């Protein structure tokens, strides 16, 4: 099998459709391993990975850790709150100290946009961005695409509506780049205050009325709404947000029949998505979580799998 000819996975903006295809194909083989009774292959035996999480994470962290275990790599996980971050050590010092212990790949989540670029410049290890600030969350974008691809058999010419806080969302940015590269049509919807200052940069259309955005959609993706956005004055109240922009069955009647409902989690039920939709037959929220492990196994394999002498 081919490998990725890059040291790091920092974002989907700089990734080609061929690379994304390779990752999705590889993830399909990995998913098959996950379905075995004994979910373990020795592909990454003796390889060392660091999970460095400067922000809380349940899904992404668990998913990366499981991917590493299924691939037989050795890994350590460090959480920002328990680490040297609180002791004032710089990111560069922290990672260089761990790198010298033999780490070959760093998975990092960090609250500052661009921090994975900064890290990648400063270490020889491969860096996988597990979410940097408001910039990108490429593995989430890939697992979302993988989920859609598995369900629909293609990404080309699908219409995907992403609804909610696009402005602060790294998930949205990765999906905007990735899905469009794969030939999908992407539209975004939500209040203007939750849109990036310049949406033209992404080449997508913006709707303020959800019903119009989801018209004819194959996929509707809700994004998590953080309470602090209301506190910083971007919209008046959670109640009003739910009323105007929350996804409910009544609001998505004009979509395709075989619609997929997605959410990267964690969900605010009753705010950006109603429980009826989240738990309904169209929802693939749990499949997304399962895809996450397969995609991350694929990435680890493609970055580290070739024998390095």
């Amino acid at each position: 099998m081919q490998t990725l000819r890059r040291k790091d996975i920092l974002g989907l903006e700089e990734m080609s459709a061929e690379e994304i295809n390779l990752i999705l194909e590889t993830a399909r083989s990995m998913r098959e391993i996950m379905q075995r009774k004994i979910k373990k292959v020795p592909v990454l035996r003796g390889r060392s990975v660091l999970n460095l999480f400067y922000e809380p994470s349940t899904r992404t962290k668990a998913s990366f850790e499981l991917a590493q275990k299924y691939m037989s790599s050795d890994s350590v996980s460090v959480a920002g709150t328990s680490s040297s971050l609180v002791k004032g050590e710089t990111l560069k010092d922290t990672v260089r100290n761990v790198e010298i212990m033999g780490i070959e790949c760093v998975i990092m989540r960090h609250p500052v946009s661009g921090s994975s670029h900064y890290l990648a410049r400063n270490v020889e290890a491969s860096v996988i961005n597990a979410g940097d600030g408001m910039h990108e969350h490429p593995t989430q974008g890939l697992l979302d695409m993988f989920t859609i691809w598995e369900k629909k058999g293609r990404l080309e010419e699908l219409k995907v509506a992403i609804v909610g806080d696009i402005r602060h969302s790294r998930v949205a940015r990765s999906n905007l780049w990735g899905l469009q590269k794969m030939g999908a049509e992407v539209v975004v919807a939500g209040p203007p205050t939750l849109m990036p200052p310049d949406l033209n940069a992404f080449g997508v259309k913006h709707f303020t009325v959800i019903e119009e955005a989801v018209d004819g959609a194959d996929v509707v993706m809700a994004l998590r709404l953080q309470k602090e956005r209301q506190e910083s004055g971007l919209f008046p109240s959670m109640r009003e947000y739910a009323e105007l922009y929350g996804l409910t069955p009544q609001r998505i009647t004009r979509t395709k029949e075989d619609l997929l409902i997605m959410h990267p989690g964690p969900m605010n039920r009753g705010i950006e998505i109603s429980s009826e939709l989240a738990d309904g037959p169209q929802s693939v929220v749990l499949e997304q979580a399962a895809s996450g492990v397969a995609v991350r196994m694929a990435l680890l394999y493609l970055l580290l799998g070739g024998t390095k002498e």
Partner: protein
Amino acid sequence: MKPLFITGGRVVDPARNFDDSADILIREGVVEKLEKELKQPPEAEVIDAAGLVVTPGLIDIHVHLRDPGQEYKEDILSGTRAAAAGGFTALAAMANTDPAGDDPSMIRYIYERAANAAAKVYPLGALTKGLEGKEMAELGRMKSAGAVGFSDDGRPVVDGTIMRNALQYACGIDAPVIAHEEDSYLFAGGVMHEGSVSSVLGLKGIPSAAEEAMMARDLLILKLTGGSLHLAHVSTAGSVELVRNAKAEGLQLTAEVTPHHLLLTDRLVKNSGYNTNTKVNPPLRTEYDRQALWAGLLDGTIDAIASDHAPHHPDDKDVEYDFAPFGIAGLETTLPLMLDEVASGRIKKFTLPLLVEKLTSAPARILDLPGGTLAPGSPADLTIIDLNREFIVNPETWYSKSRNTPFAGKRLTGAPVYTIVGGRITMKEGVVTENEKGA
């Protein structure tokens, strides 16, 4: 002190519209004669300036020396050495030190520390006590101690009444006020220009309106009060338009622009992979803004070029983008960057005499400083330039303690080869020596 005789150079003195080859005789720290051909006094030290350009000493009216308080980033000694290395004979030092330069003793401290420095230092006083924007500082007492102007630079004056009173009061003591135009609410914790690049990078944006709204307010206040206002580091097309219109209305104001705003755009934040040396306030703007700044510089809307030298310790910048402080160090790159623009001919009408004006007579006029010309009787502050000198920007060789430049590695044509302060050579071929008056 031996007389200094500079012979055979092309002398460019925009204050007098002079651009011709001439000899210059300097005696006792003063330009004694400047004529087509002078007799060389036998006892004089001679500089053969054939093939070189001789200009009035360059003046940088926007410099952060970080002294006192943050001497690990820069101090008066290292900052003035950097100035001399960059061809500057004088600089105006901003008051955002720790403690703030809001008291006559602080003004005197700067003069004392800079007494034998490689470049002259003119302290600017804080406009408000502790730079807090609440209470006017003792402008009159600081002026008596030698402050050449007043500014809270680095911070905006949020309260319009404070700005109104300060401008009006400064009028009475005949001192210019320098405004750092920024509406802190619109600024809102941004780290780069707000636009398509910030949208893609997921970095918090600083809209052009943050600068323009505050500038519009201050121009309206200026109309109310009269007085003399200088606008620091103008960075947007809208700001240029505001200044142009205000000048057309006859308001008494001047404006400066930095080399980095003239040469770089927000694209560099992306293309450099979030390099923190692109993080500066006001932020690098768009190509549209950059073109407008050049137009403003060429048509006289923008009076002067200033570095906004904002030195930081390399450790301070070697962090994640949001965590890095704002600022670009510019004392050792400003002149070469601008000379390179002249050499390249990229900007038609940006001639050597115009560049020299923007770095000599214009800044001297803005802050009413001595120098800025080579008229006989002027202080013997001179810069000698080799227009053909090629080099690569290498911050590792700087005299400044800082290394924070987005221009590292850039190949440039044109560099200063001598800096002369009060008739003494403080920089020769890139090597700086202090201006020891006793020696």
